[in-house]
């Protein structure tokens, strides 16, 4: 019962209720009997009207009315006046029912049904709606009906846009009107109708309109989401772009191999340390795409002759689309000269066919050139595995000394400045609009929505003009910290945004990333092959991001943060060692992205919250039988059903080292399960397995 006050129980109320109920029940019983016996006499039809006027939600009675109409039409189809009067009676009844209950689905649909039959005048409908909508301007049934009527009478979208304008002018606090405006405007802009073909002009107009609303009452949410949509329209890249790849264009990749005869090189960002039978080729677009295959992307190299690569979308569900795609390149097992660098040439967009979810096609033929050489491991590295146990202790990580940094050391994060026509140059109008909005919202930055909008505007501005620096990143971080205090109920939202902003800053350029890179020197310190670890620990990150800058990372320390999920981590195809210890991971399904990291060998998820929460917030983001998103049939096997989430994520991984201690789920039974499901495991929680 919506909005009805709770009243103490009184016997006289109860008696009145029973009396009323008896009357209604008598009507209902008689009606149901008429319905079953297909009784469509005038008396019976009138009885159904009486019932619906009291209880418009009685859906069976609406169905009966439709049957009665059809019955009566077949018996009087020749007389147009009679036909019209039959339908007019239905419209009258609906109007009465709606007065009783404005939200009755059955009544609204009955009206649509009548109108769709084409015997009634539509002209009256808009007038009726104006009446209803002035009583309740937010009723979504009325709005839906309005869209239905507008389309039935072919009313122009320009006229409907004017209607939303008139409502907003009357009272800007009308989210429904803003919503309808967004639908109409998007259509008009798409169709490039007169007055709507110049995006910058339209947007400038709309910014002005919504700004007025936001500045009149900054706590009223009606314009908030509309403004965010305008911002999105302003900065949206209207084409499909490749934003990153691994290997990067122009890079030299060294792959450790046993079968090489000669050795060279020391620590380098481009040495593939941990796996040598294959290496991944990763392409990262600005939007989710489909159609990446061996004909749209060609790879030529002596090392990969006559082989069609199999491209896989990196997505955690049934999707055939993804922002990131990977193909594995097999390295031949025959002896190869290690001194030789084998050139690779990859053409992305060789033939048409890569298209984005947003409807754009990849219209370039982007050339990526890199070379691969094979390098023997220094000591007794077993092929394809990490040697020894990785111990994530500070004393094992050593900073690069400036003198030791090779002059030619390249962090392979250079994006694809290889095709100048691809480079999205900010238009003057985009900058101007953002400048103007930033100026305006600085004035509103005393309140929550003012601050939040300013942070978003500054972030968008930096993204648009970020060739050299992120000019506003410190300011953005400061705003999000302020928001956490100002609006504590949503502090975790701001914290997530803060984390993403911080990661953009940390990963922005070579220098800032290099500060976070260290050499790992484990127990076998005589070994001078030292993996490079990116340490993003102790940053109180609640969320990960900027993956397009991290495709090269093989060893990543994310420990002692506040991560709840690792959404997006599947892009890091080279990852072999991952430390997630001391975070807030609540379930194995939250680790779903690991399922796609085929190079992963060392995983530390100790001291998280796995097994603590009855509610699993990633239950539907991880492929499982619940969402019909498993590649293979789920076989109900008693030995795994108790730990089915862990089974789904871990099976197929070649982990050699795993730490799970400090999670509620970790007990003797779970350990036994892990040993069974991870046959390559050598270390489990510091214990060497036999």
């Amino acid at each position: 019962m919506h909005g009805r006050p709770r009243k103490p129980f009184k016997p006289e109320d109860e008696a009145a209720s029973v009396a009323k109920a008896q009357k209604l029940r008598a009507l209902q019983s008689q009606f149901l009997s008429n319905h079953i016996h297909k009784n469509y006499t005038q008396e019976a039809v009138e009885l159904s009207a009486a019932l619906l006027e009291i209880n418009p939600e009685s859906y069976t009675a609406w169905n009966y009315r439709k049957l009665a109409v059809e019955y009566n039409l077949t018996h009087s189809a020749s007389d147009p006046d009679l036909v019209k009067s039959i339908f007019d009676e239905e419209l009258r009844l609906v109007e009465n029912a709606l007065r009783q209950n404005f939200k009755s689905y059955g009544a609204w649909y009955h009206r649509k049904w009548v109108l769709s039959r084409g015997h009634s005048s539509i002209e009256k409908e808009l007038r009726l709606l104006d009446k209803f909508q002035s009583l309740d301007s937010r009723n979504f049934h009325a709005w839906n009906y309005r869209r239905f009527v507008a389309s039935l009478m072919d009313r122009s979208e320009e006229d409907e846009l004017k209607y939303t304008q008139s409502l907003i002018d009357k009272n800007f606090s009308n989210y429904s009107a803003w919503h309808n405006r967004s639908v109409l405007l998007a259509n008009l802009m798409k169709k490039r109708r007169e007055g709507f073909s110049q995006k910058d002009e339209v947007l400038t107009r709309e910014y002005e309109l919504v700004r007025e609303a936001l500045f009149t009452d900054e706590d009223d949410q009606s314009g908030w989401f509309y403004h965010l949509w305008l911002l999105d329209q302003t900065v949206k890249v209207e084409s499909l772009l490749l934003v990153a790849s691994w290997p990067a264009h122009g890079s030299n990749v060294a792959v450790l191999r046993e079968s090489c005869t000669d050795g060279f090189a020391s620590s380098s960002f481009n040495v593939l340390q941990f796996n040598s039978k294959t290496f991944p080729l990763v392409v990262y677009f600005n939007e989710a795409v489909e159609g990446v295959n061996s004909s749209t992307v060609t790879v030529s190299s002596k090392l990969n002759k006559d082989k069609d690569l199999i491209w896989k979308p990196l997505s955690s569900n049934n999707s055939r689309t993804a922002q990131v795609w990977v193909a594995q390149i097999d390295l031949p097992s025959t002896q190869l000269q290690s001194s030789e660098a084998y050139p690779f040439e990859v053409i992305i967009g060789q033939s048409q066919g890569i298209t984005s979810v947003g409807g754009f096609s990849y219209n370039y033929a982007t050339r990526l050139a890199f070379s691969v050489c094979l390098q023997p491991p220094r000591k007794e590295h077993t092929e394809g595995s990490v040697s020894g146990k990785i111990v994530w202790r500070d004393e094992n990580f050593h900073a690069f000394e400036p003198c030791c940094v090779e002059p030619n050391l390249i962090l392979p994060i250079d994006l694809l400045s290889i095709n100048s026509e691809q480079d999205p140059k900010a238009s003057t109008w985009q900058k101007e609009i953002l400048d103007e909005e930033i100026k305006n919202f600085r004035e509103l930055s005393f309140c929550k929505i003012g601050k939040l909008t300013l942070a978003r505007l500054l972030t968008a501005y930096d993204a648009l003009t970020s060739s050299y620096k992120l000019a506003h990143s410190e300011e953005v971080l400061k705003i999000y910290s302020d928001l956490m205090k100002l609006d504590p109920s949503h502090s975790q939202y701001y914290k997530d945004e803060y984390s993403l902003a911080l990661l953009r800053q940390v990963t922005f350029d070579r220098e800032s990333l290099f500060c976070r890179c260290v050499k790992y020197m484990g127990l076998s310190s005589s070994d001078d092959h030292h993996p490079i670890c990116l340490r993003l620990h102790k940053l109180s990150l609640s969320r990960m991001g900027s993956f397009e800058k991290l495709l090269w990372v093989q060893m990543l320390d994310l420990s002692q943060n506040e991560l709840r999920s690792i959404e997006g981590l599947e892009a890091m195809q080279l990852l072999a060692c991952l430390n997630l210890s001391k975070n807030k991971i609540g379930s194995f399904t939250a680790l779903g992205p690991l399922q796609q990291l085929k190079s992963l060998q060392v995983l530390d998820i100790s001291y998280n919250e796995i097994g603590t929460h009855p509610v699993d917030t990633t239950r539907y983001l991880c492929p499982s039988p619940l969402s019909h998103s498993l590649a293979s049939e789920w076989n109900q096997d008693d030995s795994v059903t108790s730990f089915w989430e862990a089974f789904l994520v871990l099976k197929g991984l070649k982990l050699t080292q795993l730490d799970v201690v400090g999670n509620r789920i970790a007990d003797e039974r779970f350990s036994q399960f892990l040993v069974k499901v991870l046959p390559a495991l050598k270390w489990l929680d510091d214990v060497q397995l036999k």
Partner: protein
Amino acid sequence: MAELAADKHVKYIISVEKRKDSFENVVMEHLRMNGVYWGLTTLDLLGKLDAVDSQEVIQWIMECQHESGGFAGNVGHDPHILYTLSAVQVLALFDKLNVLDFDKVANYIAGLQNDDGSFSGDVWGEVDTRFSYIAICCLSLLHCLDKINVEKAVNYIVSCKNVDGGFGCTPGGESHAGQIFCCVGALALTGSLHHVDKDLLGWWLCERQVKSGGLNGRPEKLPDVCYSWWVLSSLIMIDRVHWINKDKLVKFILNCQDIENGGISDRPDDAVDIFHTYFGVAGLSLLEYQGLKAIDPAYALPVDVVNRIFIGR
């Protein structure tokens, strides 16, 4: 802070069935199937499903089934997809899906899919994304999703997505938390959550929390206990539930209890009903309130019931 008056709510739910002659009950008679689902799911979450005679309920449910395979809201009424899902859910609660002819029910639902992928609620053709969710949920519980064109069904739902990240009844319809639950739920059940802009929708949803701690269903509307379910379950499915203040919401729901007579209302001091009692308790379950069974955010059934059907334990 008040605690959950679990025993009172159990008594209230059982008493609703007995007060058949009140006006409220007669008005709601046509949707008794929904009422039974709300009441019994609440009892199960409270660990008291055995307080009802399952045989009696199952027999009544089966009396509501029509030749078409669909279920009516009550005996004598017409079949509709709304009540077909409730019937299947209640049978699932009792672990009695086997009394159904799966093909018959599934064919009824599959027959309601339109060429554009949408679903009608019944033979009269009203289209709404609520019915898309219901069809997908119901067929999934019956392991019969292959009877419909899932890809088209998903595409239709995606065509109802708005610029605020939410979803409406039909293309162009305004976002509404109840509708968002249906669309996000349907996408979740078909492994299609990649169509959701989680950050955009998450922000819209988390801004449904008002100062009192309660949630509303659209911007600038009053809070209502039922959105504890619609908003929370959607936030959970897209992993953004940490963006609201859970403690304040728990308080709001508990404040809507009728401590004396049991039941939960839409807002503090309003009249209670079975619908809000269910959404209040289910909301508390999603908030990990102690002593309640966990509820699945997509199937709207206790997690143990869902796992029994899909995982096998």
